[in-house]
């Protein structure tokens, strides 16, 4: 296939690996946009989810946030932010992506805290721990595996979606694909696609390994049972906040 050959020619051209439009710089830009977005989302979502989970309120709220956010096209939000005073380019991208990273972080952290065995919480209270101590020394440590799953989901999603920033004047590896389409150059389009897909898959694999590290053996074993490595996605309004703890895993199992 000639386009694939063209793609390898493009990837082997040293000129494409230099300067502000070169692969290293665009990759770096892609990663810092994504990192900032996930960071901002975590700062907003996690304290909120911990508070909601600790008090046991807001289950319905997290479900609604997750379902509504699924219906909003990322492109629409990117465009709206880019067209406002928030600005052209990367700042608008970071804010739009942060908005999309909030639901998985919120849901997983909330469910993680709620899933802590009530007996354990009861025992901690019985030992005289304050509400704050119960949260930070009992609930939070036990929720870490699900929180890690949420971070992984959010980060992979953000890295994938950051590609769209190129459509509205932002940076990152999507620029290569977008420029390729502008020039009707299939080789460059595919080269950009390979780079973006590789980055997304690498993020998934690295974070899956991190998730494994912080997940105790019990839940790792649970996933192997039945050969299905994934929880079903709950439909909108299907009730109950489902932890999005494993969308299409690549590295594990």
């Amino acid at each position, binding site marked *: 296939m000639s386009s694939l050959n063209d793609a390898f020619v493009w990837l082997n051209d040293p000129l494409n690996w230099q300067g502000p439009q070169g692969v290293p710089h665009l990759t770096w830009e892609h990663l810092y946009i994504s990192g900032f977005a996930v960071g901002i989302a975590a700062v907003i979502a996690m304290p909120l989810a911990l508070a909601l989970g600790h008090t046991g309120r807001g289950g319905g709220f997290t479900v609604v946030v997750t379902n509504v956010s699924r219906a909003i*096209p990322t492109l629409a939000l990117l*465009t709206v932010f880019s067209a406002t005073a928030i600005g052209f380019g990367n700042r608008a991208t970071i804010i739009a992506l942060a908005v999309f990273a909030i639901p998985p972080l919120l849901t997983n952290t909330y469910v993680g805290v709620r899933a802590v065995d009530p007996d354990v919480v009861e025992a901690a209270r019985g030992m005289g721990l304050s509400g704050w101590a119960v949260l930070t020394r009992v609930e939070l440590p036990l929720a870490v595996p699900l929180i890690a799953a949420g971070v992984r989901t959010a980060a992979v999603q953000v890295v994938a979606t950051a590609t769209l920033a190129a*459509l509205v004047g932002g940076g990152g590896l999507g620029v290569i694909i977008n420029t390729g*389409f502008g020039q009707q150059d299939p080789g460059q389009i595919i080269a950009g*696609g390979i780079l973006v897909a590789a980055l997304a898959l690498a993020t*998934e694999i690295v974070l899956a390994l991190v998730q494994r590290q912080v997940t105790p053996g019990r839940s790792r074993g649970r996933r192997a049972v039945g050969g*299905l490595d994934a929880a*079903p996605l709950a439909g909108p309004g299907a009730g109950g906040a489902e932890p999005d703890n494993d969308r299409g895993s*690549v590295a594990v199992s």
Partner: protein
Amino acid sequence: MAADEPANPWFSWQYVQDNSGDLQHYLQQHLILTVESVAIAMLLAFPLALLAFRFRWLTTPLLGITGVLYTIPSLALFGFIYPFTGLTERTVVVGLVMYALLVLVRNTLAGLDGVPDDVREAARGMGYGRGRMLWKVELPVALPTIMAGVRVATVSTVALVTVGVIVGNGGLGQLIFRGFNSDYHAEILTASLLTVGLGLALDVLLALATRALMPWSRSRS
């Protein structure tokens, strides 16, 4: 400060009236692309899930492959398909089918796996064979989970159609993008709201369809 700039409101009825033809055209394209993609994905996902249910060793590779497809960013996926299908609607449909597969396969399998063993045992005791058990017992019991998957796939597909703008067939995404390029706020927001509205409307329709398909669950709730 901005006194010299012409008004650029985020919403105007004037815009909606003047462009009702365009809005209708792209809304229609959006709907058709969504329905086509989800329908084809269902036709593929269903037999695949049944195969994996029957031959368990297929489950891991099947979920692995669909999972990898799901992780590939949409812009890249359209780029991979584009050399074969060009700047056409087909590029968009093929890409969206690939995305919908993971959710549909996973939920169908999860639904079938979730059928309680007692229920199977009872059906077997009543003399149900494999085929009849699947159609009369396992699928109806799995239906809520399967339909939940269809709803998630549909809503996500509506949102993803907009990215089809890269090959000139993005439904309402065309208007979002056109509005962006001409800095026309009303066009951006109207098309965005229509996209969200379409997603939510299809979701409600599917929820009603689920209820209609499962008369036995109505009296319980």
